[in-house]
């Protein structure tokens, strides 16, 4: 379970360009659920995901991740938690150009000090799972959008995370590939992964795999509009 209590993130604090990206969000997210954060751009979706994903620390408030308080952890430990717990799928895929698909997939595991041969096997298996194993030794520049998306997902899964975070995963995909992505996500959900998605694409938030939709506006949870997909076990803590 992931719990956010009154989480606030302020950028450029005490400077003229100070700006509050997340403003007192309190939430509880269940394990093995698919949660979608919905809202216009600038509503704080991405920032919220980066806070939950241990990429940044909140300015105030507390985040509990699987029973552990992570807000006061230094970057060094956040990273460790992050790479064991989370797999990230970015809006732009963010694959590293000039190296092969296989290398890209293995990249997050390099610092863990695993034997390269073991790692390679696992990466190939993942590529196989997403039907891109024939491209394993191709450089990423030559991939199509859909292939790049699948490689990015394989990369997110290389360290065996329990939580997948996807930031606008369909922004650069056509409808066909977006539907394909939903099917992949469904597969991951069946593998009992927790999935957090920031998206304003109806293909995603109207999909039947979504358990919960959180509406964000101006860095706050918009309580008035919890959306049709809100299921019974949704628990929305009162935001101040």
């Amino acid at each position, binding site marked *: 379970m992931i719990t956010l209590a009154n989480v606030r993130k302020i950028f450029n604090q005490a400077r003229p360009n100070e700006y509050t990206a997340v403003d007192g969000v309190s939430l509880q997210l269940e394990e093995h659920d698919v949660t979608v954060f919905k809202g216009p751009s600038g509503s704080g979706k991405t920032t919220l995901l980066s806070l939950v994903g241990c990429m940044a620390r909140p300015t105030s408030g507390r985040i509990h991740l699987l029973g552990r308080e992570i807000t*006061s952890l*230094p970057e*060094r430990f956040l990273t460790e938690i992050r790479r064991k717990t989370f797999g990230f799928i970015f809006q732009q895929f963010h694959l590293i150009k000039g190296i092969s698909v296989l290398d890209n997939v293995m990249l997050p595991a390099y610092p863990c000090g695993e034997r390269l041969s073991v790692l390679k096997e696992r990466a190939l298996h993942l590529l196989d799972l997403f039907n891109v194993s024939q491209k394993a030794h191709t450089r990423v520049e030559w991939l199509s959008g859909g292939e790049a998306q699948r490689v990015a997902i394989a990369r997110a899964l290389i360290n065996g995370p329990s939580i997948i975070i996807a930031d606008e995963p369909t922004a650069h995909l056509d409808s066909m590939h977006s539907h394909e992505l939903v099917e992949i996500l469904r597969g991951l959900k069946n593998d009992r992964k927790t999935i957090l998605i920031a998206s304003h694409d109806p293909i995603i938030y109207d999909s039947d795999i979504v358990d919960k939709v959180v509406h964000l506006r101006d860095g706050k949870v918009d309580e008035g509009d919890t959306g049709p997909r809100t299921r019974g076990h949704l628990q929305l803590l009162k935001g101040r």
Partner: protein
Amino acid sequence: MIFHPAIIALCVASLFICLMIAYSAYYGIKIVKGWDIKSGSEQQLVLERRTYLISAILTYVFGFYLISLFLYVFTVDRLHIVFTGAMCAAGVLKVNSYGYPTLLLKIMIFIFAGLWLIVNYADNRAYDYPIIKTKYLLLLILTPLVITEMILQAGYFLQMHPNIITSCCGSLFSEGKSSLTSELASLPVVPMEVAFYLSMLLTVYLGISFHRKGEKGYLFSVTVAIAFLISLVSIISFISVYYYELPTHHCPFCILQKEYGYIGYFLYVALLGGAVSGMGVGVLMPFRNIESLTGIIPSTQRKLALIAVVFFLIFTALVTYRIVFSNLVLVS
């Protein structure tokens, strides 16, 4: 001053290191003052990120001083031709009063930097950085040492006048004169050998028992420090003599030369490595009960104790091999 490439290299590199360490100290103070791990403020984040830089710099400083130590002795040794009466580094270090203090400081800084890195290693493993302030206060002790060392070294080389007549290691470390070095040289061989082997035996025993049970860490560390000193004295008193096969030659530097197969480097590296890792055990002792470190320090200490034992065993083996196979008969 003598315009030798190695001298320029040493001075230039020291200057760089000094700038780096001063930079680290400046941010060290900032960290000590402004550290608040609970805060997620950008200020705290900046400080946390500085620690990476300072760790990296200190690692470089540590490596630098190891090479610098040997290059210093080597360069000084090469200069013996320039000074009448000097036959190796020992004599050249005496040409003015800066030579030996510089060497001593280099050794101290090396050990200190090593210990700091050990503390840093342990601290970085705890999620709340519990000894961060102590750590950076320690850095403030290291900084003046490094700066002093640079000044002394520059002074040493600047004040070198080739017409100075110095004494060679033969008279410096020969028996029967009353200076500290000659007193070390004239220490009776048999009790010295006994002391040496006893200290090694005790170190190894305590090290292994610490590795097994994790007890008596302070005792082990103090023993290591004593064994380190005894070993240094032993090198002057009898180990070097066995290497030179010359009962009056006690110089601790000539063993670094080619004629003796550069064996000195192995001896000193083993000794310094053993000293740093062994003393590291003791330095970590006061912190082992800090909650976030209870899972980290004991295992680190055990590893360190093992490394120290291995280094000291290598040292003892090298020495013993030489004593047994030396042509010299000191003890009949």
